[in-house]
């Protein structure tokens, strides 16, 4: 069983962090980030060409993280690969000892740095989850043919409580869980009110008992970054009072961390939230401080 799964099953509040691979072959870029995170998180998510920008592959990133002593969550997106490639990557990753997988549909290629490319979207994240679950539990490929060997995989999915139509968000979560999502990492939360309402619905339908929900957070460095997220990123909701707080801040970096810490403290109190996923892309060095300040350090030891 993966460290992440074990932590969650034991009932400990889990901590994961996002690590974006470099736009190149310098493995030191990942090693440096991992060195800073070691001991402060249970696992690191290695992104799969996030925002449709070409980077070192997710699988390679997972292995580099492991060499640094960190367990990885391999992100898999449906944008660039069809069911043949995704199943093949899954087998390869399992054979190499990757144990956590996060199934995502993926950002559209037009948002990235190769907007002229074709996309795939043979599957969506829900169908991918279902296929990987069947590979693990039924030992069959999507076409029904048998596969050899035992697969150990802890399967997860994303969830966005903030995108439209809001009323459909819990339904989509339910579909992900019934397709095979054992854990969920949410979109970054700034608006606790809407997230609390979302979680209320989640509890009403009993979904919090069927999966482990890790709430996503992003520490922001500047007013400009927060404004960008408020205005330019669809599916993110940033309340005005936070923007105002950043505007008044003497030291925006410190205030960004303060806000993130306060949000995590609130999230810890919400029933059904079983961990946090810290997405400090480009600012991984801040994660240890945040984890310490919310009293989630040291991380529980394995076994």
């Amino acid at each position, binding site marked *: 069983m993966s460290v992440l799964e074990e932590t969650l099953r034991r009932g400990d509040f889990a901590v994961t962090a996002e690590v974006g691979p470099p736009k190149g072959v310098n493995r030191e870029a990942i090693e440096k980030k991992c060195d800073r995170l070691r001991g402060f998180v249970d696992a690191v998510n290695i992104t799969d060409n996030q925002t449709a920008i070409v980077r070192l592959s997710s699988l390679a990133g997972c292995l580099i993280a492991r060499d640094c002593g960190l367990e990885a969550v391999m992100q898999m997106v449906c944008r660039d690969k069809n069911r043949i490639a995704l199943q093949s990557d899954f087998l390869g990753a399992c054979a190499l000892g990757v144990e956590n997988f996060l199934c995502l549909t993926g950002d559209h290629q*037009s948002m990235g740095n190769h907007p002229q490319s074709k996309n795939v979207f043979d599957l969506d994240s829900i169908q991918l989850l279902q296929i990987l679950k069947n590979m693990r539990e039924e030992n069959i490929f999507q076409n029904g043919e048998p596969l050899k060997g035992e697969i150990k995989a802890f399967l997860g999915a994303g969830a966005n409580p903030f995108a439209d139509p809001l009323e459909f968000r819990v339904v989509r979560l339910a579909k992900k869980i019934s397709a095979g999502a054992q854990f969920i990492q949410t979109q970054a939360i700034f608006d606790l009110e809407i997230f609390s309402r979302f979680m209320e619905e989640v509890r009403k339908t009993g979904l919090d008992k069927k999966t482990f929900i890790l709430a996503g957070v992003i520490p922001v460095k500047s007013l400009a970054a927060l404004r960008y997220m408020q205005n330019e990123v669809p599916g993110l909701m940033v309340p005005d009072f936070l923007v105002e707080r950043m505007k008044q801040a003497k030291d925006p970096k410190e205030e960004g961390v303060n806000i993130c810490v306060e949000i995590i403290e609130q999230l810890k109190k919400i029933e059904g939230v079983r961990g946090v996923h810290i997405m400090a892309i480009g600012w991984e060095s801040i994660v240890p401080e945040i984890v310490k300040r919310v009293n989630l350090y040291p991380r529980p030891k394995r076994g």
Partner: protein
Amino acid sequence: MIIAERKPIKEIFQFLLPGEKVLVLGCGTCVTVCMAGGEKEARELASLFRLKGWKSWDFTVERQCEAEFNLKAKEEIAKVDTVVSLACGVGVQTLADCFPEKKIFPGLNTTFMGMPVEQGLWEERCWGCGNCILHLFDYVCPVTRCAKSLLNGPCGGSKDGKCEVTPDRDCAWQLIYDRLRKKNKLETLFSIQPPRDWSTSRYGGQRKMVREDVRL
């Protein structure tokens, strides 16, 4: 219907050699309705060629995508060096098969299968995936109208009813959700749509259809 738009005029000029005789061949069906390649557009293009010094005139057939109609343009085509076809890609290919010796250039870019939404505004509605499931989504095609062809609900980028990929376009899933909610049929969306069989779409290679019952 098939929607098309005229190629940039500079690109069309580059097809032609100085002093050539040019026929602009319009098509009387889809591209007439979308105002890209009908009789009117063919006449306008031919007159533009004449202004620029070419000998040019126009002729329009009912449907360039069927050989029998193209044969009616035989005499006109025989008089010229070059034909600029204002048909969709299907029409251009049929025409070229009818007159293999002739220099033929496409005057339009074929864009999509769609419908006029307002005067002067057309939108794509069908991909021709070969396996219609419109009834499941209250007649909004998620394969065509969702940028990611999602079958199990909206992605995380739907905002105020618009698609994050092209914010001037409606989010197909917001439309599907609203329409089914109005009809009290939201539960249709609760079950998981399994992976699709894309072999009926163009991913299965070039498609063809045989109807033995109507073959001669």
